[in-house]
């Protein structure tokens, strides 16, 4: 298990390492800050969708072991979302930080993006075993906000594009699929049932 998790950490950090290399090698083109912001936002959204894929995939395949990687994947969504927000604050707005308050209030795509990050923060802070125990049933209720975070994250992407919504539409479709797979009737149908033991032959 530790080996698998180590591999997952390395894979999850690869995009980050790649971007750091891009900065040092000056491979980010004319507007590196825009490029970094966009790339880290995309990775946050991808990890969020990946975390939402764990449960349906577990149901379909019956591989319950997958549940053990869900927290790790979710925390990387928070990690990339935090890097994304930090780049916006420190590199992009640098020196004009007060602008963020105005942005959050006045610009709907930033409002929903910031709300999504706040949601991820709440989930990250309560992701420990201790918090799980302490919150009990309320932990499950709280962590259902991840569906809302997914919707906010896709809206954040959708509303920032000027006219070509094809790319956010792909993410919206993936999110819709992952949510539909959770509807109880659908979830029941995709659930792989443990095969019943073969009936013992009696008599002859």
């Amino acid at each position, binding site marked *: 298990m530790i080996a698998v998790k180590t591999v997952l950490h390395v894979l999850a950090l690869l995009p980050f390492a790649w971007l750091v290399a891009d900065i040092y090698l000056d491979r980010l*083109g*004319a507007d590196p800050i825009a490029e*970094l912001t966009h790339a880290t936002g995309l990775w946050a959204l991808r990890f969020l969708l990946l975390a939402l894929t764990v449960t349906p995939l577990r149901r379909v395949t019956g591989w319950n072991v997958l549940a053990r990687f869900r927290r790790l994947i979710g925390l990387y969504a928070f990690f990339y979302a935090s890097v994304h927000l930090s780049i916006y604050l420190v590199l992009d707005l640098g020196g004009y930080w007060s602008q963020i308050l105005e942005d959050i209030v006045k610009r*709907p*795509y930033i409002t929903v993006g910031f709300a999504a990050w706040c949601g991820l923060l709440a989930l990250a802070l309560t992701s420990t075993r201790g918090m799980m125990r302490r919150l009990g049933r309320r932990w499950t209720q709280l962590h259902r906000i991840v569906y809302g975070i997914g919707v906010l994250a896709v809206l954040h992407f959708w*509303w920032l594009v000027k006219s070509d919504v094809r790319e956010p539409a792909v993410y919206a479709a993936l999110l819709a699929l992952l949510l539909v797979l959770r509807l109880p009737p659908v979830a029941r149908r995709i659930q792989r049932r443990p095969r019943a033991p073969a009936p013992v032959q009696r008599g002859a």
Partner: protein
Amino acid sequence: AAPVAPGEEAFRTTEEQTRYEDATAYNNFYEFGTGKDDPAKYAHRLRTSPWNVEIAGHAETTGVVALEDLLKPLAVQERIYRLRCVEGWSMVIPWSGVPLGELLARFKPTAQAKYVAFTTLADPEQMPGLRYRSIRWPYVEGLRIDEAMHPLTLLATGMYGRELAKQNGAPLRLIVPWKYGFKSIKSIVKIEFVENMPPTSWNELQPSEYGFFSNVNPDVDHPRWSQKTERRLAGSGSRVFADRIPTRPFNGYAEQVASLYAGMDLRKWF
């Protein structure tokens, strides 16, 4: 560079210039795709010669004119302008071209010519971006006649002492340095003198975000981007840690152009 005389500053700024590689690799030219790098990838399909421009509308002379004939009588001038994109970034680019006003005057616009409307080429064979209706094709833009006649307004045919790159709107594009970049329409095939304010592409798509005038104005926010400051994409160093700079009214050309809008409420006529 030669020293710049006072008053000349507006025509040739001495600010640090954007690298040629950046100005030709980071473009909004949706006819070739909506990605910033799409125009550089696909604009080689554009055939810029022969190129004709149709001059139409309220003028004594109209008709289809070959580009060479259109430009022949005019002396090419160099201009170094700031270019401010509505998305919050800016560049400094040396252009060469002819003042639009001098070119238009030759066609003797009549008193009814209150506005000038421009149209970009829309040929799906040369422009793969046309397959997706990101905006209504062809791209159209417009200026009020006094804006068109202003000495700062340029029809560019070159940049950085070379031919205009195709991704930058070859062979003929507009440059209106005090307006957001999307007003500076590329690869122009038609110029028409009209009486009423002509439709413009971005305004048609989202009237609440893009006005007809679209003068650079730090006091009027775009619903998606604050226009108070900008990322200046210039110089040869890394821009990862570069500071934002404040955006100036009329992109720093207020002294030359503010009088065009005297008495107008610029919050209403954004």
